[in-house]
């Protein structure tokens, strides 16, 4: 096990290196720069601005400078939000996204796994069709429709919660629901599919024949195999949830990290793009590692890999 993790860790370094390099050159190729504004700046001023941020140096030199700083953990100043560094911005925004993500994930797992398992146990019954239809609804109703709809009903009409913001405890409810519902739908469908695959196998029939109760069958026999496809999906899903969703954060005015992913690209805030990309990459890789470990645990046959 430790060798597995250590090996993964070693593999991660070249991966991050490649990501940083490719992204570095990708953003600079896109037209427009961080200082391209509607009211045009006199060229001399533009030159001096670029000099201050080191953008006038040869590209490769900038790359080396950036990588050097990266090794020290310095992600650089934000080009757009001039008074903050990328580290400061990520550090202040991530806890918010993490909190929102955890609530959303909890909702997604409870609703999704619950509905999926239930539906697989009663295949083709009313329960199955209803819950899977609801799940499909969760997928087809995009967050930018669900969010405002929830706000309209619970915030504006009933007045139970605020329409946006992240101050009081109550503010957490709607964004978590919106986020969670979306992922719950995927989890429900994948769980049902995975469970069905397993439930139809012979060893389940044997267990039933031996008189094992429903619960025992689920938890002891079926679940491990049934959850395999869900687990594979959960790796990137969790990374996505906790780095925040641009749409949910915009609709509910949540000061999280998700917004920066999109706005940094639109602002050509080179350092912010790289910072968020690398942050996300580290998360994804770590989570995929966890997923792979869990997959082995779920399916012992993989152990001697």
């Amino acid at each position, binding site marked *: 096990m430790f060798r597995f993790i250590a090996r993964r860790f070693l593999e991660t370094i070249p991966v991050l290196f490649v990501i940083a390099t490719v992204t570095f050159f990708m953003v600079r190729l896109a037209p427009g720069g961080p200082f*391209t504004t509607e009211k045009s700046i006199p060229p001399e001023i533009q030159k001096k601005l670029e000099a201050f941020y080191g953008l006038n140096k040869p590209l490769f030199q900038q790359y080396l400078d950036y990588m050097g700083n990266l090794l020290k953990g310095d992600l650089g100043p934000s080009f757009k939000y001039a*008074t903050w560094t990328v580290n400061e911005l990520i550090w202040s925004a991530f806890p918010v996204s993490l909190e929102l993500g955890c609530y959303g994930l909890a909702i997604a797992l409870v609703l999704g796994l619950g509905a999926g398992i239930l539906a697989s146990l009663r295949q083709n019954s009313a329960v199955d069709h209803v819950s899977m239809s609801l799940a499909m609804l969760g997928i087809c109703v995009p967050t930018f429709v669900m969010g405002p709809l929830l706000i309209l009903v619970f915030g504006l009409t009933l007045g139970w919660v605020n*329409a946006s913001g992240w101050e009081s405890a109550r503010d957490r409810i709607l964004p978590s629901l919106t986020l969670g519902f979306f992922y719950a739908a995927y989890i429900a469908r994948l769980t049902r599919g995975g469970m069905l695959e397993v439930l139809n196998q012979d060893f389940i029939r044997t267990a039933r024949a031996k008189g094992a109760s429903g619960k025992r069958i689920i938890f002891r026999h079926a679940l491990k195999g049934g959850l395999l496809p869900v687990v594979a999906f959960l790796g990137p899903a969790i990374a996505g949830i906790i780095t925040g969703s641009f749409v949910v954060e915009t609709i509910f*005015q949540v*000061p999280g990290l998700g917004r920066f992913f999109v706005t940094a690209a639109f602002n050509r805030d080179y350092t912010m793009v790289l910072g968020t990309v690398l942050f996300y990459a580290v998360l994804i890789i770590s989570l995929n590692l966890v997923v792979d470990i869990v997959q082995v645990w779920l399916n012992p046959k993989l152990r001697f890999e």
Partner: protein
Amino acid sequence: MRRNRQKARGWWLLLVFALSLIGCGRRETRVEAGDREQILYKGNGGEPQELDPYVVTGVSEYHILMSLFEGLVSEDPHDLHPVPGVAERWDVSPDGKVYTFHLRNNAKWSNGDSVTARDFLESYKRMLAPTLASEYSYMHFVVKNAQAYNEGKITDFDQVGYKALDDSTLQVTLENSTPYFLSLLLHHSWFPVHLPTIRKYGDPYQRGSKWTRAGRFVGNGPFVLAKWRVNDVIVVKKSPTYWDRDRVRLNEIHFLPIESGETEERAFRAGQLHVTESLPLTKVDFYRKYYPQLLRIEPYLGTYFYRINVTKPPLNDKRIRRALALTIDRESLCADVLRGGQLPAFCLTPPGTMGYTSHTQLHEDIAEAKRLLAEAGYPDGKGLPSIELLYNTLEAHRIIAESIQQMWKKNLGIDVHLVNEEWKVYLDSQRTLNFQICRASWIGDYNDPNTFLDMFVTGGGNNETGWSNPEYDRLIAEAARTIDPPKRLEVFQKAEAILLDELPILPIYFYTHVAAQRPEVKGWYPTILDNHPYKYLYLEPSAN
């Protein structure tokens, strides 16, 4: 059986009771609490880039800076005419080139220091420092030698037209007489900054000094910076050292950087905001019909127009450009599509800008347009290659472009295809003239026709059409030198007439500022630059 049913009923009652507790009782909304405590909640658009007045370029930053700083002159809340700010009074020399400002002796920074003429001197030295690379340094170029200093042609700041005659007298010498000079001073590039504070946290002549954080910030305005949470809120509190603090009635202002117009409107409706920054196109009718007392539509100093790249055929032919201009049904656009009280623009400069209204006006004339098109060699649009209309992705721009596309197709038989680009790509395309027709807008930096008309001089950074007309350039330069106001406006008339004859641009509509505002906000008057000095604002809920 019965006991089961009773139990079930009991559970239901409990559930209903619990649910009602959640929503029970009308909670006091945030604005109601704010009304009581004189706290204003203002939607402020995007998150500010910075709070250093010499480094920012946007409107949302300016709205915050207005609360934290005060310049030599301040503005009257009704019509923005210059009133005493840090300067109690000022004298102007007969040739209009020398202004002497007498500063009041009780003007203080938020840390207790007095505001002196030296402070202004040092501030402007920082503003014009070549190493700072301030995007708005050109606002100071009316001052003698300011441009030369900023461009590094002279290195002795004493040669620039600023002089501190003593601690409370500042003298400014201009290159030419500039009738709109005092209104320039309202801009944030003319605010004073506290050099000792900036020095404490970095090099004052370079960017990157982190002096603008809450707790470090020092300003001289009616409010001080209390809290700054990125993408969340900026809180300013009433300044205990501001010289006019007895007039300031608000205790706090919370600026909320809500970028999405729809989110902002919902927050307003939920009682979380007193004022919004904007109102989505889709909601204007709704408010007009059901909440007219909450709707604010005010004229705004800006024009929405299409730029034409006059360097590439077929649009290098001004007859075709004119045909396009004459076929746009601006009234219908404003009344049916935009519906926000916008005014159709038949010239570039918004009417009434500092008393100037262009005599030359376009008009809608489809017959004439058809004739011009035929004369140019494309009767009924036949043979004219497809024209590309570029805009940056935004619902409003798309809808206008689609309407105009239809107008041109139906009336002239021209094929126009729409291209949308993401913001930076669009800016880049516009700057490199990589377009045929492109959507544009210009908000005036100050209340004078010059801010609109001097865009289109040959090679001007904001020209971006490839258009060049030596007579136009001559007229604009002449206007800059003309002292007599009516004569000056006459020169502008001639210049705009040329612009509207050659049509490197197609004016479409004049902006209005559309927003939602609660009636308890008082001391707020419609102004053309959407400036509302905070020291006059207060909250007075009417007896409801």
